[in-house]
């Protein structure tokens, strides 16, 4: 019965998600446009800007695609013409790698620090419990422990 309830809930989620159409066709032009910024100074991706300059740049991309150039060749062509700032994300090389790596290094450091603190606090907690336990809690049988846990749980839920 329990599984039927969960199943129903899951089926609803799945139906919703599966209603998503599958990917239609490759959008190579759009893909390239999203890797470039518009040159007009609007701060938008080329694919989203509607100014004349953006249209000129899009025409350049279409022209290069017609000539059979690859994505990398087209992007390099724009970089040689406008500099690296025309790319919507810094290329993964040299100093730029810092931008890609540092957030994950930060996360790792954060996790390590958190683990150290949790271990430290849990150790203090256990030590405290055992110190007190010798004197007071040693006689608690399982039933009494369960009662205390239940009471505490109730308190927390309130």
């Amino acid at each position, binding site marked *: 019965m329990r599984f039927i309830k969960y199943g129903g809930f899951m089926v609803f989620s799945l139906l919703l998600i599966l209603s*998503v159409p599958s990917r239609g066709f490759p959008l190579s032009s759009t893909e390239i446009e999203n890797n470039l910024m518009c040159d007009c100074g609007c701060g938008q991706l080329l694919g*989203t800007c*509607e100014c004349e300059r953006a249209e000129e740049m899009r025409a350049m991309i279409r022209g290069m695609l017609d000539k059979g150039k690859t994505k990398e060749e087209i992007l390099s062509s724009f970089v040689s013409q406008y500099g690296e700032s025309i790319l919507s994300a*810094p290329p993964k090389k040299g*100093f730029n790698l810092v931008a890609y790596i540092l957030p994950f290094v930060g996360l790792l450091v954060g996790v390590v620090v958190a683990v150290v603190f949790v271990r430290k606090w849990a150790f*203090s907690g256990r030590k405290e419990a055992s110190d007190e336990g010798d004197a007071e809690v040693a006689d608690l049988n399982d039933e009494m422990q369960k009662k205390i846990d239940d009471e505490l749980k109730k308190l927390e839920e309130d």
Partner: protein
Amino acid sequence: MVNFGNLSLVFAFIFSLASMALLLTGLMKNDRRFLESGRRSLYGLALFATLASIALGYLFVTDNFQVEYVASYSDRALPMFYKVTAFWAGQKGSLLFWAWVLSIFTAIVVRNTRTELNSRNTPYIYLVLATTLSFFLLLLTSVSNPFELLGFVPRDGQGLNPMLQNPGMIFHPPTLFLGYIGFTVPFAYAISAMVVGRLDETWLRKTRRWNVLSWVFLTIGIILGGQWAYVELGWGGYWAWDPVENASFIPWLIATAFIHTAIIQERRNIMKVWNMVLIVLTFVFCLFGTYLVRSGVLQSVHDFGATGLGGYFLVFMTVVLFGGIYLIAESYNDLRSKHTLESYLSRESTFLFNNVLFLAIAFSTLFGTIFPLISEAVTGNKLTVSQPFFNQVNTPLFLILLLLTGICPLIGWRKASADNLKKNFLVPALASLAGAVLLFMGGVREFYPLTAFSLSIFVAVTIFNEFRGGTIARSKLTGEPVFTAFPRLLYKMRRRYGGYIVHLGLVVIVIGITGSSAYKLETQGTLYKGESIRIGSYELRYDDFRGYRDRNRDIYAATLSVFKDGKPAGTISPERRYYVNAEKPTTEVSLRTTLIEDLYVTMPEIGPNREITLKVTVNPLLIWIWIGGTMMVIGGIMAILPNRKKKGAYDEIH
């Protein structure tokens, strides 16, 4: 009215300085009379800030173009509705709005603490609020005066940017500001607690509603900003990782982390230092957002240009940051508490890890935002950091955060036993696994969408389990039928279940973002009348074209019949608008929204023979982003609903 506005601003500034002077004197002489006068001055400040705001509103409504700010953001043809909202369309009005709202919030705090002047904390709370207000009023009366006059009276104003002529403009900036401004109050309480050394959880208890309410406003502001970008900018997206968007997202992330660990401090009286750090950071990043917009240091679609205010904000921000660090360092020994946890595995520890993730995402967002400046300083190389970078770096972090959102409710407070974990994890994990298999078989093969959807199922099932367990327990205990027990459970334990609704809203947003970004379809084409364009299961046929005048704009609209799977599904009508006083025409999006997908059509070009260029996008599941956002807001509000027993709105917010 110009003089009236100017005078009101000057008086507000004088009252803020007077309040600071009186409070400081009262504290130094330990004289209650000075403190009382300082307290009352804050009411005077709120009164004059309100009068100044009324004056600016009046100048907009009456088309007083002699005032430079009014002439810059309004014109005669602008509908009255937008004349009012033009108040906060520019930098000067935004600053006045900030000062006005903060003065009202300050008045509410003063009213709520009217019987607590003898408490050592209260004068310091007032002092922090008065100082912050003085900063804004100093800018308003000196370098950014909204009542500044032009040397002549223009026949008409320059008008409001057409992109800002959208209903989203009524609520998006003010709600975002309300969020930013609201965090000033808990910041003031935190500073006061550190100064007087009263470092227990009292300041957190007293500011809980301010925290959550500010968070709710920030959430509304961010969601509405996305919605406005979606329907107004015409690029088919809702979040561009623009520096100014990021600047609103960073304090939201830190504030969310703070709200979580504040719960731990309230329950266990631990993590006091950490909470102080988080509230100081939240406030600093609220200021940082404003700094980023005003300074012009980074290129943004929100750019106000280099307004000359950046330096002032940088100084104020630095003072707040280093002042906060100094106070935390000074109070460190008192803030340190005996931290004990019963187990490694407890909800407390998962909250700590979720904090790490929130801060990691905030850091990556901040680092990406300012990386162009860092790169230029280090290598001399100018770079752009936009959507692809943030999507690449933040997506895995968000997925881990989503996983933790599901794990947290499964692990009890204090200590989780192995049996308990097994029992709680089994069903959500199986549901998620089964979901992943079915999704894979259904064609969802890409790693990120598959992971995001599976984790969404995991989190949704854990939350559903919480609702189910609570309802059954209540039903058994009270004998109420399930349908009565459920809403009563939500109301009685609204703080807890409000939180779960926020989490459920997050899951719904993740589904919307994943569907709309991973399975988006896009095409573009030029059509003559009678021709069609196809995308996915849709066909759009160009039927008609018309041009007409509406208030302050000329509108050219195409009418297209929509067919889905070959069957008629209504019409849509993208427009191109030429606003009075606007340099460039704008595109008006035409949307066909269902729970499954959005059909999103813009018309970037109209040819000489009325041939139209269309940009058509199908955004699957996108509406769920707005639904999820609404759920988050409802959950947040639910969590701070007052108890019936208490009386008075003022008491409640406090």
